[in-house]
């Protein structure tokens, strides 16, 4: 598709990014001309803004992208269909706002139908460009994740702490939904599930039932459970943890991803804690403890599992090569495992997609 935007445009309204520590970054507004507050996090991925923005794990967060040039390939047209169009990880933009250094209004891509700004505006999400995102990242690295807000045209709003809310409840599916066909049945507990998890399962010939976070999945007798990713503090999802404890006592294969991994750890009685500024990017290196193999993974999390608190019959499966934090665990039986990173990628590298194959093998065993 060709795009020939008008050379003259209305000037963008001024905008500011304000941090809870008082620092202010000025820039220009694009997307929705609204002020918005949230927790500021940075992501170091160089591609994949549609995937990131629609990832439910970003609920309540203002996403700052460290790669300066954004919007280059615009955004695809619609978002219809059960397994929504590629690039969308849920049915809408989940992040509260977007912070970039150099937004490209003039996008170019055969698949694009609108600019990033148009898309953001259509979903009511504010964005700011012209920010020194590197300086911002350095601040977050030194002081830890912080609350902040995007203020457009001087319209101030109060700070908002997403950790205080049950974000999972906000992003989880309203009602159970089924996807794919096949003999083997999987229940995906949706705590803010990325579409690509479901796609990965369905592609492998699995029948998927996606259920809400507070659904009583203990009543289901599937061939396997997948605990999805999701936003916020894992301890908020109490009912899920309770039910999960029961599931983990059984023999049904379970695979946990990101928040799902944390929920499993909590269900096992282990502890989670908040990292200083989390892991968000597409270049996080992890090492498998069993054979020493290394993988590049896509990540997006603030909380981590304290692997020293894992019960006897569970062992660490992956470790982050950068900071040594836990990246996964597995049960001695081998049928249950979970990872802190995102094997479904989107955005990011697909190197660990084989974990779905491993899960499939367990399910079919």
């Amino acid at each position, binding site marked *: 598709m060709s795009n020939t935007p008008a050379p003259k445009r209305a000037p963008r309204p001024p905008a500011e990014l304000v941090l809870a520590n008082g620092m202010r970054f000025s820039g220009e507004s694009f997307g929705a001309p609204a002020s918005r507050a949230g927790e500021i996090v940075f992501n170091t991925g160089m591609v994949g803004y549609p995937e990131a923005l629609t990832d439910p794990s970003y609920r309540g967060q203002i996403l700052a992208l460290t790669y300066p040039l954004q919007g*280059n390939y615009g955004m695809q047209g619609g978002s219809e269909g059960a397994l929504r169009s590629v*690039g969308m990880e849920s049915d809408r933009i989940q992040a509260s706002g977007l912070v970039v250094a150099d937004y490209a209004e003039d996008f170019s891509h055969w698949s694009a139908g609108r600019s990033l700004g148009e898309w953001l505006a259509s979903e009511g999400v504010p964005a700011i460009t012209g920010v020194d995102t590197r300086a911002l990242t350095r601040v977050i690295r030194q002081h830890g994740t912080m609350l902040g807000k995007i203020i457009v045209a001087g319209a101030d709003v109060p700070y908002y702490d997403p950790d205080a809310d049950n974000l999972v409840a906000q992003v989880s599916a309203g009602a159970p939904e089924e996807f794919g066909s096949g003999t083997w049945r999987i229940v995906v507990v949706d705590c803010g599930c990325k579409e690509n998890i479901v796609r990965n399962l369905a592609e492998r010939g699995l029948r998927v039932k996606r259920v809400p976070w507070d659904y009583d999945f203990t009543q289901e007798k599937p061939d396997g459970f997948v605990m999805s990713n999701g936003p916020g503090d894992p301890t908020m999802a109490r009912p899920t943890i309770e039910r999960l404890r029961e599931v983990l006592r059984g023999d049904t294969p379970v695979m946990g991803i990101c928040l799902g991994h944390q929920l499993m750890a909590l269900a096992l009685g282990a502890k989670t804690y908040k990292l200083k500024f989390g892991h968000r990017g597409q270049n996080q290196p992890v090492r498998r403890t069993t054979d020493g193999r290394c993988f590049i993974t896509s990540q997006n999390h603030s909380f981590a599992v304290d692997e020293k608190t894992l019960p006897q019959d569970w062992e660490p499966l992956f470790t982050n*090569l950068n900071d040594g934090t836990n990246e996964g665990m597995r049960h001695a039986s081998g049928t249950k495992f979970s990872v802190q990173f995102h094997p479904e990628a989107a955005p990011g590298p697909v190197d660990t997609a084989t974990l779905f194959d491993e899960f499939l093998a367990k399910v079919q065993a």
Partner: protein
Amino acid sequence: MIEHPKKVVILGSGALKIGEAGEFDYSGAQAIKALKQEGIETILINPNIATIQTSDHLADRVYFLPVNPDFVERVIEREKPDGLLLSFGGQTALNCGLALEKRGVLAKHNVRVLGTPVEAIRDTEDRELFVRRLDKLGVPSPRSRACTTLEEALATAEELGYPVMARAAFALGGLGSGVCRDKAQLTERAHKALALSPQLLVEEYLEGWKEIEYEVVRDAADNCITVCNMENLDPLGIHTGESIVVAPSQTLTNREYHMLREVAIRVVRDLGIVGECNIQYALDPKSERYRVIEVNARLSRSSALASKATGYPLAFVAAKLALGYSLHEIPNAITKVTTAFFEPALDYIVVKVPRWDLRKFRHAVRRIGSSMKSVGEVMAIGRTFEEAMQKALRMIEVGAMGLYANSGFGSEDLATDLAEPTEERIFSVVEALDQGWTVDRIHALTHIDRWFLHKIAGVVRLGQRLRAAEELDAPLLREAKRMGFADRQLARMRSGDEDAIRALRTAHGIHPVLRQIDTLAAEYPARTNYLYFSYHGLEDEAAASPQRSILILGSGAYRIGSSVEFDWCAVNAAMTLRKAGFNTVMLNCNPETVSTDYDESDMLVFDELSLETIAEIFRTLRVEGAIVSMGGQTPNNLALKLHRAGFRILGTAPESIDRAENRLRFSALLDELGVDQPEWAQLADGAEAKLFANKIGYPVLVRPSYVLSGSAMAVASNDAEFERFIGRAAAVSREYPVVISKFFDNAKEIEFDGVAQDGEIVEYAFCEHVENAGVHSGDATLVLPPQRIYLETMRVVLETARKIAAALRINGPFNIQFLARKNFIKVIECNLRASRSFPFVSKVANRNFIDTATRVIMGERVAPATRPFFDLPYVAVKAPHFSFLRLEGADPALGVEMTSTGEVACFGDNFYEAFLKSLIAVGYRFPIKSILISSGDIASKAELLESMKAFADLGIQFYATMGSALFLIENGFSATALHWPMETKKPNTIDYIREKKIDLVINIPKNYQDDELTNDYLIRRAAVDFGVPLLTNRQLVRRLAEALTYIKPDQMQIRSWNEYTSRVAGDTAPAPSRGHRPAGAIS
């Protein structure tokens, strides 16, 4: 983990050439460092004496020998290594390795190829095998067939449909490749390509597809990552080395990026690469279809670029992986806390722009395409595309101010300039946008992705506003700076001067910030100072060091006349300064260099070599002063400007530099000193110039002045020639005057290199040119110690150099070029900086001139060297390497314009041995059984008689053009006459050359440069195109005849550098004294 080898041979890439340049100095040097760290004994074979890898502090032993199977085998026999590294010396090393394996040499001597196994190399080099492997993996490649005959090629093209892409296997830099739009084009190309390579690949031409590259690293444990991806602004069809390239890719979605990444890893795993490789893709701009174009199973130009672009030391890591390490066992050299198993996250954009010198070559085709013609490149870093792109265009130093505000590029015909690119296409894009062409229209002609075009359009729009604005107020100035407009660019647009813009900027507090490259987008703190400037940013990330800081200016882009030799100088200066406890700050913008390795200096600023950038370095890093004498002409040209702007220049005073550089002032100085010089005048009018030429008498040397790079110095023998050159030089005017000098035939040329302290020479050496004056000193064959210079001449040369050094109060390195006839000498020029031959003289005499010069510059008292420089029990010869093969159409005759792209040097017990070795190292092949001679005028024929006798005695058969054949027969030789190329009659010279019936072509031009397509030109060009060695200089022919008479190939000694130099008794290195008092101007 595999057991470490004890002794490893590393193959270098030989002379710098088009397609194989400085990047392999970088990769080889890193490999040696990586091996040394493990305590492994390292043996380097590389005749490229100007490189850093051939320094005494790196490999344990260096052999300045040709990198070919014969010599390498002999080194292996002698050294008995247990390991061999092939992937750090470009295609030269790879091909040599394949040949050694094939001959069974490696098996015989129990030498293990480290890293990527030979089978994998072969499968990537042989296009047919490669395509087969991809097929098996289900990875698409362009539909193609490997053909070995013309008929097969034509049939394949019919099947695929024109246009087709024709490519030669086992070649690099796209040699012999190109798009063929019809049968005639394919026939011509196939002829040439099959002359050079056994295989020609004919394939579908993917017009307009995006060209994308990934740099992939894999360890022996099968861990695999992609370190960097890159997108070519110029779509497929323009070689990656000829393309403007950005990193990371800009127009790829997450799916596309990771789809190609996944394929890269799958292919590399399947091939079994251990170490580093590069994979190139074509990606459909209208769908997710893609094709794999090729895999380079070795370090490459792209990997050097990727290393500098990301801060990930690919070559170093690849060497460790070759030893069997896993990626996670190697620490990340920048953060020191993370490991090498990760993929760098960039928070900036990098733009690479190639540097061409096509205008320098007579008759060269200026179109660019799928084969490489560029001679160097620059890399610019910015926080926006606009910022980096504009910087990069200034960095290549072809007279561009950036994207906007240029003049003199392109032709009248914009549409053609866009559709059939020359090296200046990017400026035509700007011109079209400036004239109001739409992005879509330009896209249709160029296939350049609209994203890039829109960005450039934004710069043009701002440029137009900047031109029109009444006042350059703070917001507008800030916007301009963020869009990459330089002070001098703004000055030109607003008809002011650069200092005024800088003052305005300072008044508004508009400064760039120093940004760090940390591989992890600030997620982890960096422990190194790898820096660049950006006008987008709030804070500097590096501060002045508490130590005394010295700025060293590097060389910028490699180009004809300035390349790796100046990197050697800059790196050596940094080493000396570091040893003396200074904080060294290196400024350079060339990704092919060692000086831009962030561990070679305390702080590396990867940015423009410009007054603006340097001023900001003085401001932010509080350097004490700048050294401008190491990086060649680019920094030298900045000296006076910097000085006038109040920045301190260390070493020789800028005033003196100007006195040497300014022709009028220098001439006056020589007169004052009573030193002779060729008669000359500078004239602002063509007619007056002709009068002057007649007054001094032909031949004369004509030097027009130019706005753009690439000039055409020429020798005129008569009025007609004179008028033609002046005509070509466009208008001669007051602003662009012409310099006419008396040209001396039959004079020897002498190259004097020295170091002086307060005007007293403390170190010097001089080289004799084998060719008479008239062959540019950069193209000449140099010999040290001199062989054919009278003692008296030597005395006068030294005395003259002393006078000049004293008069200019030289403090640091300098170079003087002399003409000598009988015992009279004339000075041609004097440069108050290190010269091209500094590495050569330093390594041959085993006295590091740069170390001495640097100490002098810093004010250390240095005692004059006592041992005479010519007192050496061996001889070394430096020979030029030409890349005419890649420069379609270019006339390979030597002249006063430099045309060589690189050089080698070899040692011997005598001149002839060193000479023959160095000829072999630049591609001459022996034995010679047949020579084609066309030997110019009668005088030159007569001069060559003795040589002909020698050749005849060696049993060499002569073929000759009519006149030369007659002459030979008259003089008692037997010779077969061949017809001139333009005569269609047979037997014809061209056929004989094409059919490889000739082993050497001797063609002595009748005049100094052929401006027309003469028979002589056609012979020379055919020799180049069909890979037959060529000599166009009488002195070289004579020396070759003597050498072949006196030396047999098996008499050529295999000795390491150290074995030669250790023969010198006693060390007379200048003794250091205590205390540092920087010499130079006080600011």
